[in-house]
């Protein structure tokens, strides 16, 4: 049997596996990021961070439902200064593992994105991911930047001006034309795209308590229910832009990851699947993707990229 390689290249950086820990899932501490890296991640993303600390929304903030998860964590984070220490510690722990670190940033207004990145530069993350797409803070911050190509491009440009490291921009599925946003951020300097952030927002109502269950009332959907939306977004984006895409949204098995790669993704983000399958999820997915590649005669992951687009 032919040996199959799982490594991929993202913006010139080698990832041991195509699996990227999605932002906001388990990325709060250096010890957790290291643990996920040791358990099969090709790259890990730290929790999205703003200049100032945020407490986030009251609980319940994350709930399981039959299609996956719904969350309104509300971008709780310790602020950029504290994040510098977490990222620097994480980098030291990841160096011997050869797993790159992605720092995720967000800001209340487009110009603010540059400010966070300038603070985080000290920690020397391998990539920045620009979170312009969180749907859970609309009441406080208004529509996400990702809702408008012009705003999305301004946020991207602010980050581009603040760093020479590769910049990933994370897009929202909750727009009429995701490709227009994708093209705008690539024109503004994005080196890669991540898609999708959570879908919605949605709502769960407890019919006995007669009230929405999330304290924020609404939250973003993730997990298996959103996968077809995510696959469509990645498929469309890969035709619209030339930069690599980290495809995510509901990917739970190795075969789901193959689907995302065939849609055009270079790497695959995994978040909610840690709920369904626990800490061993990426190792299990690696075994599943290998089995598929052996069955179908693929030698490396990049051979599968974009195959769903036909000849």
């Amino acid at each position, binding site marked *: 049997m032919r040996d199959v390689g799982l490594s991929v290249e993202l913006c010139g950086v080698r990832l041991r596996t195509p699996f990227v820990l999605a932002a906001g899932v388990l990325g709060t501490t250096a010890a957790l990021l290291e643990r996920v890296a040791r358990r099969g991640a090709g790259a890990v993303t730290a*929790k999205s961070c703003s200049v100032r600390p945020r407490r986030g929304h009251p*609980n319940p903030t994350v709930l399981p439902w039959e299609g996956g998860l719904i969350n309104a*964590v509300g971008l709780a984070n310790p602020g950029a200064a504290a994040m510098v220490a977490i990222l620097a510690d994480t980098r030291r722990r990841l160096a011997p593992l050869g797993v790159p670190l992605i720092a995720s940033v967000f800001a209340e207004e487009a110009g603010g994105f540059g400010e966070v990145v300038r603070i985080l530069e000290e920690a020397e993350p391998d990539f920045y991911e620009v979170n312009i797409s969180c749907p859970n803070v609309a009441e406080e911050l208004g529509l996400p930047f990702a809702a408008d190509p012009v705003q999305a491009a301004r946020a991207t440009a602010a980050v581009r001006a603040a760093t020479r490291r590769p910049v990933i921009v994370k897009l929202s599925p909750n727009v009429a034309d995701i490709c227009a946003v994708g093209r705008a951020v690539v024109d503004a300097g994005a080196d890669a795209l991540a898609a999708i952030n959570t879908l919605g927002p949605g709502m769960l109502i407890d*019919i006995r*308590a007669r009230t929405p269950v999330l304290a924020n009332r609404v939250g973003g959907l993730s997990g298996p229910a959103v996968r077809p939306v995510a696959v469509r977004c990645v498929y469309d984006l890969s035709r619209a832009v030339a930069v690599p895409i980290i495809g995510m949204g509901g990917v739970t098995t190795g075969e789901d990851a193959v689907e995302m790669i065939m849609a055009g993704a270079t790497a695959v983000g995994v978040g909610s699947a840690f709920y369904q399958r626990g800490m061993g999820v990426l190792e299990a997915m690696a075994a599943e993707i290998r089995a598929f590649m052996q069955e179908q005669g693929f030698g490396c992951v990049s051979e599968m990229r974009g195959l769903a687009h036909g000849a």
Partner: protein
Amino acid sequence: MAPSPHRAGRVVRVEPAGHRGVTIVSDIRLSARPGQFVMLWVPRADEKPFSLVADNPLTLAVVPVGPVTGRLQQLQPGDPLYVRGPLGRGFSLDGQRPLLVAGGSGAAPLAFLASRLAAAGREVTVALGARSAGELLLVERYQAAAARLWITTEDGSAGERGLVVSVAERLLANGGCDRVYACGPVPMLERVAALCREYGVPGEASYEAYMRCGIGVCGSCDRGDGLLVCRDGPVFDL
């Protein structure tokens, strides 16, 4: 699955737990392991973790320390209750001659364990400690389940004056215990862990950490070493 992830039920009985806390007995029937916990939702307010004192019917012991635990003191029979769980990894039931070491509100999960172990025919020894008599919880439940119950308070207002770990050390030195189960403040757990190593007895302890999701995704409850208290724990091997 119902539209909401919470199980709904009602409060059946509220009993005092120490001078300030309450034991809440509900009509919710769960099947859980001692050491597991639930996320208790107070609609339009908050959702917080609580250990099970019993699973069937679901029973909690709540000490007031802030807004949610304060509100729970006001519960009356008939009031609605909403819980998500049972969650997390509980205690093993491997102790044939178990020693339970409970400090403060750590009494809650170990009361469940004591009754489960007693029901399985094990001879249960308990060292139950608190700062003062008024902070001792669930004494009657321990009296019912334990073959031997040692009570300590730091101010000597009930039982022996001193720390519960001192009693645990004495009991371990006497021999006859094959597994230690502990719950309480972290410094206490560290001393129990040291005793387990010293006497070569395996131990398990239930930890607390700030929780949001309770299901291993949000990363709020890192114990400090990358282990998640909500999912890898709350019970860890010492």
